[in-house]
């Protein structure tokens, strides 16, 4: 809770900063906790429902806790044409999760994103902010394994 208030107080008390506040909460907690939104409603003096509307509207925000490592698989057009849908199948086979799901051990979450702007390297996968270009079915398990506990990176 302390962290929540720290984030909120770093912005002036104006509605227009609500998206930025939620993004910061998302970055910190990997999701937006209910208490965070309640505190925001109190701080901004706005209805909780309007914040809930935003949290469900914007793709960058999530109400469910995410895994430790976030896999962003690009399914933008260029990646799609170069076989990103196969990688979705590949991740399902390797980790047993589909888009917007988290592994039971809480290690990985998969998000499908529409273009990370690195089309020349398609298909692209971003894990915790690290970009992997020209990912193939062969390379996929290798990349994912490097994020497991104790793996040398």
């Amino acid at each position: 809770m302390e962290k929540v208030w720290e984030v909120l107080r770093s912005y002036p008390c104006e509605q227009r900063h609500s998206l930025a506040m939620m993004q910061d909460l998302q970055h910190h907690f990997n999701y937006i906790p209910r208490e965070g939104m309640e505190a925001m409603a109190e701080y901004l003096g706005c209805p909780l429902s309007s914040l809930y509307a935003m949290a469900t509207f914007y793709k960058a925000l999530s109400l469910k806790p995410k895994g430790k490592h976030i896999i962003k698989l690009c399914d933008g057009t260029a990646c799609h044409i170069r076989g990103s849908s196969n990688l979705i199948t590949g991740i399902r086979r390797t980790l047993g999760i589909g888009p917007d799901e988290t592994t039971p051990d809480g290690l990985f979450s998969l998000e499908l994103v529409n273009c990370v702007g690195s089309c020349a390297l398609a298909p692209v996968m971003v894990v915790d902010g690290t970009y992997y270009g020209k990912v193939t079915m062969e390379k996929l398990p290798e990349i994912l394994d490097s994020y497991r506990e104790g793996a040398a990176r």
Partner: protein
Amino acid sequence: MKTILVCCGTGCLANGSRAVADEFERLIGERGMDARVECYVKRTGCNGFCENGPIVKIEPADIMYYKVKPSDVAEILEKTVAGDEPVERLLYKNDRGERVLHQKDNPFYAPQHKNALRNIGAIDPTRVEDYIAAGGYEALKRALTMTPDEIIEELKKSGLRGRGGAGFPTWRKWRTAADVDVYPKYVACNGDEGDPGAFMDRSVLEGDPHTVLEGLAICALAIGAEEGFLYIRDEYGLAVKNINTAIADAERHGILGDHLLGTDRKLKLSVVRGGGAFVCGEETALIASIEGRCGEPRPRPPFPAVKGLFGQPTVLNNVETLANVPIILAKGGEQFARVGTEGSKGTKVFALVGKVKRTGLVEVPMGATLRHLIYDIGGGIQGDRPFKAVQTGGPSGGCIPAHMLDLPIDFDTLAQYGAMMGSGGMIVMDDRSCMVEVARYYVKFLSEESCGKCTPCREGLRAMLEILTGICEGRGQEGDIELLEQIGATLKESSLCSLGKTAPNPVLTTIKYFREEYEAHIRQRRCPAGVCTALTVFTIDPEACRGCTLCSRACPTGAITGAVKKAHVIDASKCIACGSCREACRFGAVETRGRDGV
């Protein structure tokens, strides 16, 4: 003095350019610098030729190295920096197999005409001094001596039209906002590049942030605004960082802030990070998002130039548009208008991607043909396969077939054929791209991104997606094509904003130019491109197979068996029809047919 430029754009970083830059710095430091040669490493923005990254350029000799690894650094320092000898193996090989020494001779760069991308790859985006040395902020200096009318007149002469998609004349937006006598006014930059397959805005924001700030400042002078916002996708971390650095530096140097270049004019700029919603590229939705609400569009008029942010007059321009503004002010509108076509002046940046040999960002004069872009600059189709279509303008655009390759690209021509310029995504497809599946892909994207406010867009897209998915999965029926056309027409006419109005374009253009492909899916239960898994069976032609084992190694399910130098076989019960074997095969031995054997 020689300068070593290491590209550290997102693409090159993914290829490991940070390690290359570090190695240069380490070795230069370790060797205590050669007495004759002083080198330093600049972290430049994106070159657009990301596929061949990390890219290293040695100035002033204009030598460009590709796919540089940290282990190559010592050799480059010895040969090219201390001496004048190129490292042959790191040079680019052109279509004739010759090594190309200079960037200007590379077939990817040679035909380009750079306006918006002029500084990218040449200056360090984190150093305002670099931008100033390249002639930066001269245009702003000039604008400060002009009246708003004179600035807008210069824009009018240039014929600049918005590069974000619709192609609305930029001067007219500025004129409208300048004429409204309501204060405060705002300027805003649309950096919410949501088009999947386009990344020119990211590149400009990352690689030349000051040019965007300068464009915004000139706009602010023209309309009388003192505050501005840059709305940038949160996914573009480096872009947000570089813009924030640029704003802070420009304020510290007295360029922006309370006294624009020492005058009594002021401009306060700040960054708003986008929340990841495609619809926020629409101006009224973007404004709602900056105000801290859901990014839903509203009906226009009133246009934002009259009533925009916080209800005040607001001019909203795209990143690439703003990057062109300083050139117009510095060199004059007439000079700018010398390049381009009758109705579309200047240049346009395209993201040339997909199944093309050389991918990346290319900036060419308006009116260049698709053939020029795809074959001369792009080097043709990967693996020399047949060209099938090019998709322009992202989800709002359309697919243009092979017989229209000589079409000149400008705002009006593309619109005439059902496609659109959009933000400049140019996705090249070969005979292994299924046009029905591409249409389904876009409709799925749009149905997820539709904000849901107006019914035609929300329900129409959902219905279209259902029909298209059915066709791709073998449940297509007679009458589906006509129904798609009908729903598409309704969307075009009755949607609230451009997202819905243009959403049927990918479907309608693929039906128009590739109707037979739809019919093959529906009538013969066959996907001619071999993409739709429910309709495709993969087999290996035993005559053509040389038994090289590449396919069996590429197969993710272990469905392919066979001994070395013997024909391989696919076990249909294990095959998931992913096509990895077909991509891997060098002899064209992997074949596809429909489930019914057609």
